[in-house]
């Protein structure tokens, strides 16, 4: 197998020393079948042990190695060097504060995840003990793609509306909420819409569509948000015509 010399320009930031981030260059002999994550691991192991970044599974499951690769939000374990030029710029995910080097602070999204109530809500308590809530294949296929999200947060890094206004709930969380809204076992749709179709919710999205384009798991958050807008508009009329309650 042949190797290729690549120039990695990696954003560095040490909160204890640096006022602002800067780029550091590393020359890395890359194997043909490497992903960018392999090149970063090579730097860590052979060139600079101080480089901080997150990764775990190296197989597109854990969602922790999301970074900007040449300006594009990418999962570095599935971004291959054969698809990239000799110079590659690696930055921490956009729109998030930088903790150190390539590590970002995700607290904001974790807070928002809670707001979306991403679990099945039932009104008929207590849940039946002798049977489970059944699910048809047709309904499963309707929402299945949204369950593929691994919370890598590439969609947040791609979303300009989140960049401009951090109070916007944002793509992945809204997509996950929609996944439960269209689950036939769930009864919490209007409860969620009251939160997610409020001021900081779906209406802040202007359908740029970047979230869906960068998603490494082919989830379509942009579609989910548009469908939630339609649901929100219907729910608004329902509440107006139904005397304020749904």
């Amino acid at each position, binding site marked *: 197998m042949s190797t290729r010399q690549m120039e990695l320009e990696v954003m560095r930031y040490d909160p204890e020393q640096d006022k602002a981030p800067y780029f550091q260059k590393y020359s890395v002999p890359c194997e043909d079948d490497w992903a960018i994550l392999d090149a970063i691991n090579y730097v860590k192991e052979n060139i600079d042990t101080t480089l901080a970044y997150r990764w775990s599974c190296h197989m597109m499951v854990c969602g922790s190695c999301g970074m900007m690769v040449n300006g594009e939000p990418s999962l570095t374990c599935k971004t291959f060097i054969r698809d990239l030029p000799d110079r590659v710029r690696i930055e921490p995910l956009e729109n998030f504060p930088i903790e150190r080097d390539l590590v970002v602070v995700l607290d904001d999204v974790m807070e928002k995840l809670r707001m979306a109530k991403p679990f099945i809500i039932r009104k008929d308590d207590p849940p039946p003990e002798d049977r489970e809530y059944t699910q048809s294949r047709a309904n499963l296929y*309707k929402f299945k793609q949204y369950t593929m999200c691994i919370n890598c947060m590439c969609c947040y890094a791609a979303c300009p509306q989140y960049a401009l206004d951090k109070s916007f709930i944002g793509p992945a969380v809204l997509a996950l909420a929609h996944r439960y809204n269209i689950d036939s076992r769930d009864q919490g749709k209007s409860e969620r819409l009251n939160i997610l179709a409020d001021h900081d919710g779906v209406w802040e999205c202007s359908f740029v569509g970047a979230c869906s*384009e960068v998603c490494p798991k082919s989830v379509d958050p942009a579609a989910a948000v548009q469908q939630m807008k339609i649901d929100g508009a219907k729910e608004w009329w329902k509440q107006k015509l139904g005397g304020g309650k749904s």
Partner: protein
Amino acid sequence: MSRQPYIRPVSKTTWYMRNGRYRKYMLREVTCLLVGVYCFLTIWVLAILASGSQEHWNAFLVSQQSPSVVAFHAIALIYFLVYQTFDWFKLAPKAMPVQLGEKKMPDRFIVIAHYAAWAVISLFVFWLAGVI
């Protein structure tokens, strides 16, 4: 170890220059100005018709016949087709997915249906206006 997360600045006025995806989006969004222009142009037409005067109408038709007006409409037509009509049709299946039994209807069928409906509507209006 002290935490001091660094927040990268984002320009509120020029953020869309960062990539082609954003620029394309902005080009789509400003089609609203064209919609506004043609709405008020049509309202102007209605105002002339409301006056009930054939001379006013004929004078209006003549006043519109200039190369610059031709250029404006021609550019507006192309711009509108590319950034509003085609874009709207392309994105329609996202907002309104159709489920056929267990499978989702392929997006392209929904897009094709939109183009077909568009052709029918356009031909109908042209027929109504006596163009064809």
